[in-house]
């Protein structure tokens, strides 16, 4: 282990030559910044989605016919309630309404707390409606009639991404809008107090009604994770390619810079620094450069993602047709930071080994004479 005096002197020499290291510092910070931003956004969205899944009941039952969603009636509710271990079954109205004039889909969600003619809409919905002058009232059109509903409240900005393109209506109003019968449900939420029984009960539900899909929370969370792994993974592979090119460039750059520093290294060698000491010196300097660039990149990414809301970059992940005005929940995972550290700092130092060695072994006696 190098002594404190050695480390201090290495850093002194680093600051003397800070201009030489500026290029690598800047580029590396930028690389870490981009990578961290993407991972922060991805993690934050994942977190939000998973939190919203967790706030739902343990099993979500949906009916399918010919591969498409189909309603369920009260009989389903009754049958499922009979399964041992189920404490409650709640029917929900949930569907999509096509707003033809603007060619967008609104997510209609039934909310029993709302009165028959009350409506709460998300910010994205409000914007679309306002463009066609639906400011106080909105007309839903279906095959049979037109339903006029007052626009009551706007869902506040900063709620999770689910609410942005959503319209909350009283369940019966929602049924009318979606063309469903009064005793029909789009989804059933099944509450199972004992988490160990969830997968068993999901199986039993499917046994009862072979055409339904019973998704447990764990499945839903797993599905979200799969999606994000996929998206994240593709990005990472592209990133690796970009990074390897950077590091090759770095190696050449470093080699060039060191070439000019031959005399300085020879002076140190003449004072008693051995080859190992020179390599250690270069390593310490590059560790300081890479770690500080890493910290700058991560801090910059934090500010960019969680304070500035990541303009331009978030569109990679948020693919809704409606303009999204969600704010990202600050989620910092230590494992993630460590991952970024491993991904950046270790290859950086690895690529510095050869140039550092080359300069350390260069011939002293000629260099000190010049």
């Amino acid at each position: 282990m190098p002594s404190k005096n050695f480390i201090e002197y290495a850093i002194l020499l680093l600051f003397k030559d800070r201009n030489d290291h500026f290029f690598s510092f800047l580029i590396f910070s930028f690389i870490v910044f981009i990578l961290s931003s993407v991972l922060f956004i991805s993690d934050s969205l994942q977190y939000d989605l998973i939190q919203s899944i967790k706030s739902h009941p343990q099993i979500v039952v949906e009916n399918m016919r010919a591969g498409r969603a189909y309603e369920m009636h009260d009989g389903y509710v009754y049958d499922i309630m009979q399964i041992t271990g189920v404490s409650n079954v709640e029917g929900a109205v949930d569907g999509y309404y096509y707003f033809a004039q603007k060619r967008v889909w609104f997510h209609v969600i039934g909310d029993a707390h709302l009165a028959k003619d009350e409506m709460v809409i998300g910010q994205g919905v409000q914007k679309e409606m306002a463009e066609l002058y639906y400011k106080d009232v909105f007309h839903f059109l279906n095959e049979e009639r037109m339903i006029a509903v007052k626009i009551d409240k706007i869902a506040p900005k900063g709620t999770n991404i689910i609410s942005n393109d959503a319209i909350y209506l009283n369940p019966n109003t929602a049924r009318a809008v979606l063309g469903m019968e009064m005793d029909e449900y789009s989804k059933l939420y099944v509450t199972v107090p004992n988490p160990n029984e969830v997968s068993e009960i999901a199986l039993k539900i499917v046994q009862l009604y072979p055409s339904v899909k019973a998704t447990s929370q764990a499945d839903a969370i797993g599905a979200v994770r799969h999606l994000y792994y996929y998206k994240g993974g593709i990005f990472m592979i592209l990133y690796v390619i970009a990074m390897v090119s950077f590091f090759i460039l770095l190696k050449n750059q470093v080699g060039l810079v060191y070439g000019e520093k031959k005399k300085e290294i020879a002076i140190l060698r003449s004072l008693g620094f051995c080859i190992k000491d020179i390599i250690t010196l270069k390593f310490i300097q590059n560790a300081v450069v890479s770690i500080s660039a890493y910290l700058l990149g991560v801090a910059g990414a934090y500010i960019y993602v969680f304070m500035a809301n990541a303009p331009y970059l978030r569109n990679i992940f948020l693919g809704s047709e409606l303009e999204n005005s969600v704010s990202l929940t600050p989620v910092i995972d230590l494992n993630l930071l460590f991952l970024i550290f491993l991904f950046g700092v270790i290859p950086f130092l690895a690529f510095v080994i050869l140039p550092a060695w080359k300069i350390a072994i260069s011939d002293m006696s000629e260099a000190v004479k010049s």
Partner: protein
Amino acid sequence: MSIFLSNEIIVFLLIELILIVLMAISQVNIVRIVRHWDFNATTPLQYALEKKNYLVNTILYFTVTCKVILFLFFIQSLNALAGIVPGAMCSAGVVGSNHYGNALLLLKLLLIFGFGLWLIVNKLDLASITFPYLKRKYILFTLLFVGVLGEFVLEILYFSNIPLTVPVFCCSVVFQAPRLPFGYTQTLLVLFFYLLFGSILLLNYLKQTMASFTCNLLFLFIAYYAITYFFGLYIYEMPNHKCPYCMLQKEYYYIGYLIWGSLFLGIFFAIMPFLIEQITKKSYVYLLKYSSYCLMITALVCTFYVVRYYLMTGVFL
């Protein structure tokens, strides 16, 4: 959806690949060094070879540091993967999801031991003027390089065989009794654990390197089973939770790192003196006392949990 798209796996394999490239560069240089080395020569070639020696050294120091970090990262990644491998609730399910998992872990551990041995021999080699252990040191390096290549192949096989659609077993199935070898019962296992531990302390004190080496190799396996099948129960406070990995988690205050860490370090310090004596033909016993310290920590922590449980409940599991 492929496991190779997981962020952790990508980073992990990238670093492994970089280390392999560095080691390959070393290996090429080593072949040259070993072929032409003649310490008594005063030719430019000999001086150039001495300088190449330092490149190999640097690469190895760097590799060893990274390997240790990667080992810990690997364990953590397995736990992260448990989220997408169906049925796995912790690393045990992921490791046991195919027959490469346990072999891979053991190989990683042995390689780290091997690197540690190389570092010590290298230090001794550099400390003497004539590089007396150079050729032996580099034969060892070549063996380690082959091991690292094998490890990489095993990693690819392991990762590509992790099932993402078929549920795997979790630890309660993987570690259920009776899986103890030779039909040992728990009592016999614990007895053996403490007996071996006591013998090792005595042998370390008496500086008997060969006996300590043998006992420690045996202790590696006995301790693994003892911790998984006995002491672990008292850490988890459940009679059927037999798992070596769960104790690495936050819920158990990461105590697993202390237990496994001190165990592996203790065994490392105990087996090194014998191996170094074989390579250098010189005595090197001062590491034995560190072995005793580390193994004492392991035994103390494990015993603490048993005693604590007994004091809290008045019974044993």
